[in-house]
């Protein structure tokens, strides 16, 4: 049975992946059109998490291919198990048995890597190709050939065609511009940092025991810091959650500037950014931001 958009929306909420309507819509279109989904956005906005959440929603296997410089077909697609083949040769030689070549190049001696595994899966898996911008352009060209036909040729065996078209999610941190060919084959989603009201929902979903007031204050402070253009590394969602967990563990029920200052290492991870915060904003500046938010009746303000 095909998934409806409403089911997908509920599914994401069920697995704790809080996202905007546009994200649900684009993922839904990628699923119904059977197209790979290219997700771009700043580090820490939940690109990889989207792939993981989708696998949970579809109740299927997540196959992950982490891209890096130098990644090639042998590590992404398949490789022959040379050690095992060699052993077989030596055993057969000592037993004085003649080995047929086709025996050595049979699926038994094939090491499946993520792409082949996804193609040979019986149930539609989620194939997460993470940080695709880190791989070399040659590998990218190979990748978009695989993604367009969902079949690969293994010279010794023949062509392997996908039994089911995997749901493919590619993520990129825009370290380099991806080729037009790859982009043409994908649907595109740009994930931005969530607005405070969404972030409050994420904090409440992921951090057990966090109080309403604390969740609002955390979201407000993080949003304020992300607006500071001088900060080179803005706090990501993962960092926000770590910070929230730390505050809950320290049994804090509300925030003030001093507390933010004391726990700043969890939020800002560049020395220059911490110096900027202490010089230009400081605990008093943050107190003011929190007061203004409450007085202004921001979304979710206690």
């Amino acid at each position, binding site marked *: 049975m095909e998934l409806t958009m409403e089911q997908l929306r509920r599914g994401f909420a069920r697995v704790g992946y809080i996202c905007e*309507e546009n994200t649900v*819509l684009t993922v839904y*279109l990628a699923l*119904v059109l059977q197209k790979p989904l290219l997700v771009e956005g700043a580090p820490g906005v939940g690109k990889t998490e989207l792939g993981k959440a989708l696998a949970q929603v579809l109740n299927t296997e997540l196959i992950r291919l982490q891209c890096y410089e130098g990644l090639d077909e042998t590590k992404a697609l398949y490789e022959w198990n040379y050690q095992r083949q060699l052993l077989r040769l030596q055993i057969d030689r000592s037993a004085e048995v003649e080995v047929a070549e086709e025996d050595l190049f049979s699926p038994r001696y094939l090491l499946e890597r993520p792409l082949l595994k996804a193609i040979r899966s019986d149930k539609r898996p989620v194939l997460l190709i993470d940080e695709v911008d880190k791989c070399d352009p040659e590998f990218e060209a190979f990748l978009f050939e695989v993604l367009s036909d969902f079949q690969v040729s293994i010279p010794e065996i023949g062509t392997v065609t996908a039994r089911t078209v995997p749901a493919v999610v590619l993520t990129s941190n825009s370290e380099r511009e991806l080729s037009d060919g790859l982009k043409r084959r994908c649907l595109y989603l740009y994930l931005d940092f969530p607005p405070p009201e969404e972030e409050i929902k994420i904090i409440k979903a992921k951090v057990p025991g966090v109080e309403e007031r604390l969740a609002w204050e955390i979201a407000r402070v993080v949003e304020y810091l992300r607006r500071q253009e001088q900060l080179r590394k803005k706090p990501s969602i993962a960092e926000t959650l770590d910070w929230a967990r730390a505050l809950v563990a320290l049994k804090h029920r509300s925030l003030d500037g001093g507390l933010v200052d004391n726990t700043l290492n969890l939020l800002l991870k560049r020395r220059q950014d911490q110096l900027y915060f202490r010089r230009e904003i400081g605990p008093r500046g943050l107190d003011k931001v929190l007061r203004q938010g409450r007085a202004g009746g921001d979304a979710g303000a206690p």
Partner: protein
Amino acid sequence: MLPSPREEELFLRQMVAFAGQLRAAGVEVGTAELLDCLQALQHLSLARRDHFKGALGATLAKSARNREIFDLLFERFFDPLQAREQQTKRLEQQEKLIKQLEEAGEALQFKGEPLQLSDDEKIWYASLPEEGKAGLQRFLKATEEGKKVEASFRPLLETVVRGQLRYWRSRADAPAGEGGAGSKLGAPGLRHLDLKDIREADLPAVEELIARLARQVSSQLVRRQRRLSGAGAVDFRRTLRHNLQFGGCLFKIKYRRKQPRRQQLLFLGDVSASMSRYSTMILQFIYGLQTSVKNLELFVFSDNLEHLTPRLRQGGDPGQIVEQLVRRSKTWGGGTNIASALSTLAGEYASLLNMRTTIIVVSDTRTVTLARALEALDRVKTRVKRILWLNPLPFSEWSCYASVKAFAQRVEMWPCHTLAQLEKIVAGRLLQKNVSGKEVGNEQAYCPGR
């Protein structure tokens, strides 16, 4: 109710027209994308505007930059009411502008004749606070009523008025505090803006953009260096040793890795009054390449040469340091003497010049003693691998300057007045040995022998 064939055709035409508008704005939309888009729309109800827009966005605009253009065009194309409002606003603004020009023309007069000021300067005047306007009026009146005031005073007076206007403008452009109204062009806009036109309010965003571009280009350079240095010949010694565990069967071949030769990058930035903005920003970008180019030496020059690298080794935020250094530099804002700068380089810093050195010069080539500068350039050129000249003058103006022609015949020269051009040149040219005249932002480079 199902749409009639006529309605369907109209809708299709509209979609094709929208794709055409996207293409005209530089978004790469092919037939495949358009077909994907139409297919996506079949799975949605067109009654929901956000779904309609989301489907178009996911299939037609496939980068952050394209998404911004898409958002702008979508509103204009599919919301005629808003487009009409925008047009009315534009007309109102135009009328306001004409009024401002007339007001300034009447107010800024000397002996009954309007001062020769550009339209921009007149608009600055119109947007001055009242105290600024009154001050200028008082000054003009006092000059007019002074003793022995001749008509020849006019150019001097115009220069003073221009200076005053610039002062007020720089005050208005000072970084806005929290909630202040800074200009927000966004990264794509800033990349294609002439560096000299970037406003003070946009500088933090530009610095961030420069740092990001430098990181991107840096990783590309490292990648390319590794690829070029690729696997070399078979290393027999290591291969035999490694394969002893397999009973001497050559199971895994080990290769020697070629050691890449380190290239030396030398940056020479012209910081004379007209060039300082370009040089400061390009210098920040080059400084950001440190991770990929280990041997980096930075110099600035106007009437003489100054070595910046020793001061940069003290650490801290590179953007701020470069800005401060250039401002503190003894040569900042002076006249340009390329001959003197190159002679000092060849004499006092001779050890930095060798066949692994690439020199990047940022200058508009306008210099005193052109002949001597060309001789000095010829001398330096024979001692280094290559010289890459980034010229902030628009390519269309190059033919107007004899100095540009003369320098471009000797070295590889590229137009470079936006960050987008800079990124393209550095990423594409820095590691290339043979340069042909490929395009940089629709413009071509002058290269020797072409």
